[in-house]
């Protein structure tokens, strides 16, 4: 079931979702993660999505249902999932509700601690991930450069033909 037929609204909904996620991080004392979440995801990644959705246009896609009766089945299944989750959560007795949660060490979630974790404790993993991103970036540049040069070849060949 798709509530928002317009792709642009769906992208906006995703942005609001990412902002809400940052709010959840804040509640968990992860202020650095929350800020990074907003700057990287809501600020940089979603900008590209918004670009594409805005350029492609507000054409409301006629959506067909791959499964017959999907529109009626989907809310039922969602309701069933809600009931199941409610049973699971209430089954714990919500005993943690009145407590103050785990005691956090001082400076938890601050940039200092995140930096120590990333650059000292998990240095190898961190560097491996950055290598992966570098390879991806170089790959993207190569692909883009190749398609552009093939365009130029086409343009040169045209007058000859």
């Amino acid at each position, binding site marked *: 079931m798709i509530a928002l037929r317009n792709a*642009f609204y769906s992208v906006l909904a995703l942005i609001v979702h990412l902002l809400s996620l940052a709010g959840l991080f804040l*509640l968990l004392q992860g202020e*650095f993660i929350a*800020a990074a979440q907003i*700057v990287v995801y809501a*600020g940089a990644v979603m900008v590209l999505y918004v670009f594409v959705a*805005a350029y492609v246009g507000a054409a409301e896609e006629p959506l067909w249902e791959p499964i017959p009766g999907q529109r009626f089945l989907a809310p039922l299944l969602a309701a069933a999932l809600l009931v199941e989750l409610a049973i699971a959560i209430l089954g714990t007795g919500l005993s943690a509700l009145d407590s103050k949660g785990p005691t956090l060490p001082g400076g938890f979630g601050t*940039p*200092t601690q995140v930096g120590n974790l990333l650059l000292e404790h998990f240095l190898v993993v961190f560097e491996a991930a950055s290598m992966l991103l570098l390879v991806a970036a170089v790959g993207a540049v190569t692909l883009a450069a190749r398609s552009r040069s093939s365009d130029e070849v086409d343009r040169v060949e045209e007058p000859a033909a």
Partner: protein
Amino acid sequence: MTLPLADTTFVEATWILVVKSIVIFAVIFAIVPMLTVLERKLLGRFQARYGPNRVGPFGLLQPLADALKLISKEHYHPRAAIPALYYIAPAIVVFTGVATLAIIPFGNVQEGFGLYGIDVPIGILYFFAFGSIAFYGLLLGGWASGSKYSFLGAMRAAAQLISYEISMGLALLGAIMMAGSLSLVSVVEAQSQVWYVIPQFVGFLIFMVAGFAETNRAPFDLPEADAELVAGYGTEYGGMRYGSYAMAEYIEMFVISAVAVTFFLGGWHGPGPGFLDPIWVIVKIFAFLFLFMWVRATLPRVRYDQLMSLGWKILLPLATLNVLVTAILVTVT
């Protein structure tokens, strides 16, 4: 009492924070009209004409007349616009601008409360987080207006903001590494010996150029280039909604100036007793605002491809180099 954003630093009572929020709102909403009249008077001087001089003594009541005019205009939206988004977009820009002001320090902790909204440990990331939300205010405004000029302006604003945000962050990174902290209060405290404008002069220049681009001010006011795009993302706006965009631009100018003062000009440091600290900050901020207006009156608008190549081919490598050199120097010394 623990607050999510403030539990590792100086924590204040909730009512103090509420009072501070109201004070920040009141101060910035009093400063913006002053800036508009200052800008128009200065532009008049720069262009050898009078500027506003009819309303009140020396034309000083001009912003009051402007505000009354804008507020009393008809609420209007084009038929092609999407009303909800069209209405909410100017509010987003104003909100993010004012929210960013919360972290600007106007003085250290004096008599039990800090002369800043809140001293967050993530510091400048807060500024960048709200900056990236502000972008949606421009983009939604342009997109929801349902007009081609607005849309083109919004797209330009978007491309410009993401191009220059990186250089801006890297420019500040040098000062952050020297101070060893993201918190704006600590950065100012670290400048008690020497202001970072001297060791971080390259970073300062990059920050200022990127700041002009971030605030969409001349010579980088391409999103609202009136010769090509009528008024860019604000084309279809009228009344106080247009006024909100204009107001947000002044608030952002103020914020960028305040961040520059905090990171490069020693924040509240200055001669005289402690109670002069906020005065020093304001004086330095207004010096920057004067620079903004001076540049607007002096430089012509750049072309769009010049703007992009300046951002990506000059500022970004320069900022990266600055960060690398600073990192090596900080590690060695």
